[in-house]
């Protein structure tokens, strides 16, 4: 049992991990054909993973409805929403438009998914305004520097900001766009470069740990 649960998965990860890693650097036809083949398998596995994710989602919300926990009514909407879109997709055969006319699925996308998705993201704007007024307190030098950088970037991003800057600070002979570009090109880029290098090294190390079986989180608790 240990062979099936532990050693075979480790062996699969190691073999395919090393071959795929090597294929990236080998400019040979065989290596490209291998990548084509493994990519197809990846698509198949992704489809199963999506199906598994869907079952897991339905199970979690079914349990909430069964136990009538707080907010169980919202869990009903998971099933209702899924059914609406599924029925619309089946009626339209997966097409959003046909012959220039919007299908049933296209209608649900334009009138349900589109507005709901945009609304969810728009709520952020209201939280930002509330936080800006009630929580942004300039109590230290670093907070002031953060505010200054944010102020310059915000003013530089809007035409009205350019007009305000020109009215107040035209005597400096420096435009807000120039200052904004300096902030983006110098301190921000330097910081971002450091972060990107850190992330890349971290990702490479974690990938190697998974390939060599040191990191086994994907195998579950046993």
């Amino acid at each position, binding site marked *: 049992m240990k062979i099936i649960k532990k050693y075979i998965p480790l062996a699969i990860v190691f073999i395919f991990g090393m071959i795929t890693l090597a294929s990236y650097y080998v400019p040979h036809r065989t290596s*490209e054909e291998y*990548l*084509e083949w493994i*990519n*197809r398998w*990846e*698509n198949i596995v*992704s489809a199963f993973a*999506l199906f598994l994710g869907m079952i897991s989602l339905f199970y979690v919300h079914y349990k909430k409805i069964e136990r009538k926990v707080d907010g169980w009514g919202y869990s009903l909407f998971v099933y209702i929403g899924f059914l609406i879109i599924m029925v619309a997709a089946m009626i339209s055969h997966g097409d*959003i*438009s046909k012959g*220039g006319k*919007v299908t049933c699925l*296209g209608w649900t*996308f*334009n009138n349900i*998914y*589109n*507005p*709901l*998705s*945009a609304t*969810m*993201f728009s709520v952020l*704007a*209201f939280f*930002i*305004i*509330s936080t*800006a*007024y*009630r929580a*942004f*307190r*300039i109590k230290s030098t670093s907070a002031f520097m953060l*505010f200054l950088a944010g*102020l310059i*970037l*915000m*003013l530089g*991003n*809007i*035409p*009205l*900001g*350019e*007009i305000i800057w*020109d009215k107040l600070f035209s005597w400096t002979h420096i*435009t807000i*766009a120039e200052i904004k*570009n300096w902030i*983006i*090109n110098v301190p*921000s*880029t330097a910081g*971002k*470069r450091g972060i*990107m290098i850190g992330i890349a090294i971290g990702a490479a190390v974690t990938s190697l740990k998974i390939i060599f079986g040191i990191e086994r989180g994907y195998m579950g608790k046993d």
Partner: protein
Amino acid sequence: MKETLNKMLKIDRRWLFLLLTFAIIIPILKPIGIPSKSTSDAVKDIYDFIDKLPPGSTIILSLDYDPSTAPELHPQAAVVLKHAFKKNLKVIIMTFLAGSGGLIDELVRTIPTKYSKEYGRDYVLLPYMPNILAALTQMSSNIYAFYEKDIDGKPLREYEMMKNIQSYKDIACVVDITGTAILDYWVAYVGDKYKVPILGGVTAISQVGYGPYLQKKQLKGLIGGMKGAAEYERLISEVGKGTSGIDALNIAHILVIVFIIFSNIVLLILKFL
């Protein structure tokens, strides 16, 4: 006085929400028309690159955004597509995000007819592909290994514009409009590895993070947010949603700045009272 100022600092946030709502709705209903004076270098670069492509060149337009980021990115996609059609470029439209189907459909239902462009001759739509890494690496040798058929299930090779297209070697550039990290994949797996020019369009908040790529010319140009779309619309002399939305953006930004400054001034006064 102290009590009043304290009350002002602890004001019910619903008043703030109401103020923001009016600040956004009023400029949309009654446009102010604040003129934009400058065009950023990154937008100019992307405009110049596409403008200098010879007519008949094929570009890939990868539209990877969903309705949550559509207000910033949809105007960018529209203006790039309009520019490409004005320059008589052939466009291969694709996506790696499942939620962008309806938005792409909205683009291709309105824009091509305005420029007398025909499906199959001037542009094609490829189906959604979940496995981005596989698709990007595969297209380096053979686009049809992954994209055998177009979005309608018809063989891709049979379209007039795809007759001389085999891989990235036949593509003039890739323009990726996205609110996710997909642009990083295009730069790393296509731009750097296969030397294909990559151009991008991102949300304003993400724009700052692409400075390293722009400095090293890994990205040939970048449109940032709604302002970037408005600047591009001005360059191609076509008013679109980027320009019309900029008034609301102006007022909302100023409101946030005013709130921060006002609350901190009140706090400072309270400190000395």
